[in-house]
């Protein structure tokens, strides 16, 4: 696929019976997300703040969707509603036909940074999910080792997170989320705190891993390049109030590599996103000026 630092024998170590289990009993694939007429409102000191307004979104099983938008547009809030951390004021979020009311291991979460348990070794971090799911110590550890090799960090199993670089920590975070075999992977600006070079490698890495699992991914970012490079579909949001303003299909061939970043197709899509966001940002400014 790519020359990203992922071990080549991962096919051998992955437990494919568990992978196949992501197909439901009736043969339908898992990982369908549906967001219906969702409003999310926060109470603040200065009154209610509408973070997300009238969001409607359907994500197909196995789709890689990026939520793109400026800071404070409610994209993370919308993702947190899918994760079950935030309750919508009205409307409903469903994953595989079940209404989301609380967080759960079927929706793996990767945070921006510093979300590993610092008192657990890398392996203990990854084994945590399986342990909570009730498997024994031995099996949890073997699952953890499998996923650590998948992200190329088997050699660091006994290290503590604070001895790892930011990029390595995020790879552990991805392994930890995947170790529960989630049907949906939710990623909240996971590479936002990394430097540009590491970020590109992490993106390739992620696509590589996703190619293995093909679970549904919802990826929040404010970086247009990142959104175009990674996703099948870009959902653009605008700020105050957070609204979905566009839904762009990204029909770039896979597997994708760094060279894609300078191709004409990529540029055209990037321009489309830029124009959209610029238009929306200008609109928002004008509205704010009128209001002021």
């Amino acid at each position, binding site marked *: 696929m790519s020359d990203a*630092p992922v071990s080549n024998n991962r096919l051998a170590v992955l437990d494919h019976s568990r992978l196949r289990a992501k197909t439901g009993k009736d043969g339908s694939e898992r990982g369908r997300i549906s967001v219906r007429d969702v409003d999310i409102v926060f109470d603040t000191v200065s009154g209610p703040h509408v973070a997300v307004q009238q969001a409607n979104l359907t994500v197909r099983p196995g789709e890689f969707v990026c939520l793109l938008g400026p800071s404070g547009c409610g994209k993370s809030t919308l993702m947190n509603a899918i*994760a*079950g*951390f935030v309750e919508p004021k009205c409307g409903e979020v469903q994953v595989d036909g079940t209404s989301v009311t*609380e*967080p*759960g*291991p079927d*929706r*793996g*979460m990767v*945070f921006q940074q*510093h*979300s*590993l*348990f*610092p*008192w*657990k*070794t890398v392996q203990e971090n990854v084994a*945590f*999910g399986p342990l*909570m*799911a009730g498997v024994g110590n031995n099996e949890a550890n073997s699952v953890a080792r499998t996923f650590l090799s998948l992200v*190329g*960090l088997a*050699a*660091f199993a*006994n*290290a*503590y997170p*604070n*001895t*790892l*670089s*930011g*990029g*390595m*920590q995020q790879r552990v975070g991805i392994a*930890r*989320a995947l170790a*529960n075999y989630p049907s949906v992977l939710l990623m909240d600006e996971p590479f936002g*705190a*990394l*430097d540009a*070079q*590491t970020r590109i*490698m*992490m993106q390739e890495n992620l696509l590589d891993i996703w190619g293995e699992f093909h679970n549904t991914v919802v990826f929040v970012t404010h970086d247009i390049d990142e959104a175009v490079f990674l996703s099948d579909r870009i959902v653009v949001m605008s700020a105050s109030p957070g609204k979905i303003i566009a839904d762009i299909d990204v029909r770039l061939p896979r597997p994708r590599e760094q060279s894609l970043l300078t191709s004409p197709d990529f540029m055209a899509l990037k321009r489309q996103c830029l124009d959209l966001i610029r238009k929306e940002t200008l609109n928002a400014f004008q509205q704010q000026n009128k209001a002021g």
Partner: protein
Amino acid sequence: MDSKSNAAIRTDPVAAEPSHQASSGPSTARGSIPVLPMAQQAGNQSRLPARVWMKTTGTRYLVRTLALVAAVVLWQLASTNGFHFYINFDNIPAPSVVGAALVSELTGQEFYLHILHSLQRVAIAYVLAVVFGVVLGVAMGRSRWAEDIILPYIELLRPIPAVAWIPLAILMLPTEQSSIIFITFLGALFPVVLNTVHGVEQTNSVLIRAARSLGASKTAILWHVVLPGAMPSIVAGLAIGMGVAWFSLLAGEIISGQYGIGYYTWNSYTLIQYPQIIIGMLTIGGLGTLCTLLVRYSCNPLLKWQAKGGRS
């Protein structure tokens, strides 16, 4: 995390290994004062060459020892020359006299009985304080109700010195022994409770969210996230609590009829045995320090993740 800047060169796992090792090297020479000599040494031993140790840590211990020796020398000079300028050393026995008295105490049995009784009281009171303190502290840190109910008592009772509890302790508790243990227990309790509350309230909310999304129950979150996260603060509270326990023991042992190092000190004062007063004081100081070090050292495995380069 200082690692962000190095992320680029470290992403490749092959390249990462050496730089990972190298990054853990210099951290041993960091400028923090080794409050925990044994603990820090244990963590870094394998990586620290003897020569470097002599230059950094070794020198510092030398300075510390010399500082203590200097004080003893000054004390000796002041006592033998009858230094009297506002502070009066006329009646203060010189270190040599105290030393001679100490030798005669150490050859008898009585002195050890005093120490034994005190150790026993501190041990019982401290264990009780740790159990109650951590349980109350976690409850207060996790539940607003618990905090609002318990905190007023703690704020009100905390400033009351141990000595002031003596009359009530005698009136309320059945035996002299239980009164002394109660007073010692109270002294150790407050630092343990307050530090536990502080640690628990500082729990990183991202880690709780991470645990929830990984399917952890409330109990599991308490056990795997809240307690380990609060542990540095709890351990600090345990160490302070041990110091205060000895501090309060001295007050409690005023009412002791026969044994205890606090009783020994008070009794020597009544009998005008000046060298014995100083022996009693220094014994309390020494035992308190030793016990505090013991607490820190035995809690160290719980905090090994904090050490940079913490491979086990």
